[in-house]
C-alpha cells in the first residue's frame, strides 16, 4: 500500500455524477444569464451549455459519458411526456371536434408535404416516408418548458400542448406502420410484421393503464398532501420509464398514455400537484443540455439541404392545416398563425423515433439520422425561438414579458 493511500486517485473515478453536476451547473448559469440580462427563456442557455460542453465543441463530456446518461435522459423525457399527457383533456376533443380535425389535418398535410419534397430531391421513397413520419412529431419539452417559464395561459398555449401530444402519437403510429411494412420487405417473418406494432401499441397502453390504476390507488391512500403525492408519483413515473424500456415498449406511448389516463380517470380530482416543481426543472435542464450535447453537428454539411427542405415543407403543411380549420375550431387567424409557429420545435421524441428505427434497421438508420438530426440541429434554437415569439405575441406570457 502506498504511503499516500489516503489521497484520492487521479483522475478520480466517481462515475457519471460529476458530469451531471457540471452539466447542470453550466446550464443553470447560462440559463440565468440569458433570463436576467437578455430576458430570454432559460432553455436557450441550457441548449448552449450542452453544445459547448459536449463532444462536438469542447469535448469535456465525451460520447461515452453521454451514452451513460441515456437512462436519465429517458426519465427526463418520460416526466415531460407524462406532464404533457396530464395537460391533455380528451373531453375537449369531444366538445370541440374541429380540434381533432385540425390535428389530423396538420399532421397529414405536413406528412404529405414533407414526403413530396423529399421525393423531389431524389430521396428513396421509403426513407422519405420515414423522415416525413418522424417530422410529424413536435417538441413536447419546448412546449412544456416555455409554458412553465412564461406561465403562459390561453388558447395558443392550450392548443399547442394538445396538438403537440397528439403529434407525438401520430408520429409514433406512422413510423411503426412504416416499420411494419419494412419488416415485410426485409424479412420473411410475417408474424413480426403484424405482431411488433400491435405489441408496441397495446402493450404500451396496457402498461399505462396499470400504472394509472396503481397511481390513483396510491393517491387515494395518501390523501391530498402534495409532498407525499409528489414522491409517490415521481417514483411511479421513474418505474414506468424503466418498465417500458425493459419490456421494449414505446416510451412515448407509455408516458403520454399514463399522463392522459391519470387525468381522465381521476374523477375525484385527487391529484393535488401537477407540476414536478424544482425537480421537474432539473430534469428539464438535463433533458435540454444532454440532448443538445448529443446532437451530431458533423451531419449538418451533408444533411443541411434535405433537413431544411424537410422543415420548410413541414411548416407549410402544419400551418395550412391549422389555419384552414381555425375559424371552425374557434380561433382567430392571428392566433392560428401563432399556433402554427409553436408547432415548429422537434427534438426528443423525433430522436427516439430515429433511434428506434436505427435499432431495427441499422443501414437505413444512418441516412435517416443525417436528415432528421440535421433538421433537429437547425430547429434546436430556431424552433424554441419561434414558440417563444408566438406565446409572447399572443399575449399569453406573464405580464413582465409584455412591452
Amino acid at each position, binding site marked *: 500500500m502506498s504511503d499516500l493511500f489516503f489521497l484520492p486517485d487521479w483522475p478520480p473515478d466517481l462515475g457519471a455524477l460529476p458530469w451531471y453536476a457540471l452539466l447542470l451547473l453550466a446550464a443553470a448559469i447560462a440559463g440565468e444569464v440569458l433570463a436576467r440580462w437578455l430576458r430570454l427563456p432559460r432553455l436557450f442557455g441550457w441548449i448552449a451549455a450542452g453544445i459547448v460542453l459536449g463532444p462536438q465543441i469542447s469535448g469535456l463530456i465525451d460520447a461515452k459519458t453521454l451514452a451513460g446518461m441515456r437512462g436519465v435522459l429517458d426519465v427526463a423525457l418520460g416526466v415531460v411526456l407524462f406532464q404533457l399527457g396530464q*395537460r391533455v*383533456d380528451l373531453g*375537449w376533443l369531444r*366538445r*370541440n371536434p374541429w380540434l381533432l380535425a385540425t390535428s389530423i389535418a396538420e399532421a397529414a398535410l405536413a406528412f404529405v408535404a414533407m414526403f413530396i419534397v423529399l421525393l423531389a430531391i431524389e430521396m428513396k421513397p421509403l426513407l422519405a416516408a420515414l423522415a416525413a413520419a418522424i417530422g410529424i412529431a413536435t417538441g413536447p419539452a419546448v412546449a412544456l418548458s416555455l409554458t412553465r417559464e412564461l*406561465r403562459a395561459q*390561453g388558447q395558443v398555449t392550450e392548443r399547442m400542448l394538445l396538438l403537440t401530444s397528439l403529434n407525438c402519437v401520430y408520429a409514433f403510429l406512422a413510423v411503426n406502420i412504416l416499420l411494419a411494412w419494412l419488416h415485410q420487405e426485409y424479412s420473411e417473418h410475417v408474424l413480426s410484421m403484424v405482431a411488433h406494432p400491435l405489441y408496441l401499441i397495446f402493450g404500451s397502453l396496457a402498461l399505462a393503464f396499470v400504472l394509472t390504476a396503481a397511481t390513483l390507488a396510491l393517491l387515494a391512500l395518501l390523501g391530498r398532501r402534495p409532498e407525499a403525492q409528489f414522491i409517490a408519483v415521481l417514483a411511479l413515473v421513474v418505474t414506468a420509464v424503466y418498465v417500458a424500456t425493459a419490456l421494449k415498449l414505446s416510451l412515448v406511448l407509455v408516458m403520454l398514455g399514463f399522463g392522459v389516463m391519470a387525468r381522465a380517470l381521476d374523477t375525484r*380530482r385527487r391529484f393535488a400537484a401537477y407540476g414536478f416543481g424544482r425537480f421537474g426543472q432539473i430534469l428539464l435542464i438535463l433533458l435540454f443540455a444532454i440532448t443538445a450535447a448529443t446532437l451530431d453537428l458533423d451531419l449538418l454539411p451533408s444533411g443541411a439541404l434535405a433537413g431544411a427542405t424537410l422543415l420548410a415543407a413541414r411548416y407549410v403543411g402544419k400551418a395550412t392545416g391549422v389555419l384552414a380549420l381555425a375559424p371552425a375550431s374557434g380561433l382567430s387567424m392571428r392566433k392560428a398563425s401563432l399556433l402554427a409557429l409553436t408547432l415548429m420545435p422537434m427534438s426528443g421524441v423525433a430522436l427516439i423515433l430515429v433511434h428506434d428505427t436505427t435499432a431495427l434497421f441499422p443501414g437505413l438508420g444512418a441516412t435517416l439520422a443525417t436528415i432528421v438530426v440535421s433538421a433537429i440541429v437547425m430547429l434546436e434554437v430556431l424552433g424554441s425561438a419561434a414558440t417563444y415569439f408566438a406565446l409572447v405575441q399572443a399575449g399569453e406570457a406573464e405580464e413582465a414579458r409584455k412591452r
Partner: protein
Amino acid sequence: MATPPLEFRQSAPLTLGVELELQLVNTRDCDLTRAASDLLALTEKKPHAGEIKPEITESMIEVSTGIHHRHADLLAELQQIRATLVAAADRLNVRVAGGGAHPFQHWSDRRIFDRPRFQHVSQIYGYLAKQFTVFGQHIHVGCADGDDALYLLHAMSRYLPHLIALSASSPYYQGVDTAFDSSRLNAVFAFPLAGRAPFALRWSEFNAYFERMSASGIVESMKDFYWDVRPKPEFGTIEVRVCDTPLTVERAAALAAYVQVLCRWLLVERPDRVCEENYLAYTYNRFQACRFGLEGEIVDPLTASRASIAEDLAATLQAVAVHARELGCEAPLSEIGRIAREGNDARWMREAFADGGSLADLVWQQSERFRTAG
C-alpha cells in the same frame, strides 16, 4: 375645471337589470385562467342575448341583461346568456363558475385586461386591483327621479344584510376557509371610496356633494365610488352592489326579484323612517352578514331590537308578500324563503368541500352547478 352637475335620467320605476361577474377557470386544476379575450372573440361572432364584456383581469367576465319589468323575462335572458357562455367556453376548454371569490387563486398570478381604464386602476391601486379579483352581482333598479333614487338607496340600507347573507358565496379565499360567508366584501372595503353613500335625500344635495368631491380632485366620475349602493344617474337607477355572484343564474334572478319587491314595498308603504341614524348599526350589521351569513345578527338602531338575519328576513318576506304578488314574484320569493331556511351558497360550498376534499374539486362542482342548474 368645473364638472357639469349630474343629471338623473328618468327610467321606468322598478325595472330591473342585472350584472354578473363570473369566473373563468381551466379544466385541469380549476385555477383561474386567462381566457376572457379568447372567449369574447367567440361570443362576439354571433348575436346573443344580453351583453358579455371584459372585466379587470383576463380570468373574469361580466355579463349584463337588458331592462326588464318582470322576473320571468330577466330569468329567461340570464339563462340564454348562460347557454351562450357555456357553449363558447366548451369550445375553448374553459369552465365558467359563479361564486364571490375564487377559493384558491393567488392574486399575484392575475393579469390585468389590456384596456386603458383597467391598466390605470391597476397603477393607482397596486395589489388591491389584483386582489380585487372578486366576483359580484350588481342589481339595477329603475327610479322615476333622483329624489326617489336617493330615498330608495337609504331606505334599502337597512335590508342590505339580507342580500349579503342570501348571496354569500365566498367562504374560501387564497386557499383557506376565511370563516366568513362572504369574504369578497372584505376585499371591497379596502378601497378608499368604499362603504356607504353620504346621507342626502334630495338630488340637488347629492349633486352639491359630488361637485365638491370632483372639484377637490378626489373623484372624476361616479365610477370612482365603490359604495354598497350607488346611484347611476346616466341609467336612472340605483345599483345594489353587495351581492356575491351566486352559483346559479336562477339564484341571481331570485335575488333581483327580492330587490324589486323590497323597492316597491319601500316606495309604496314607506315602512321605515329614513334618517342618518339608520347608519349607526350599518357596519356592524354588514359585518355580521359577511361573517355569519343568515345566522348573523341584525340590529335596528332606532328600536334597539335585535334578531337573526334569517328571522328578520322571514318577517320581511311576510311584510312584502302583497307586493310580490303584484310583481309576479311569488315563485322567486318563495325560493328566497327557502334559502333563508336551508342555507346559502356558502353553506353549500362548505359541504361540497367536505365531500370532495379539495378546493379544485369544489370549483369543479361550482362550474357544474353553474351550467346545469335548472
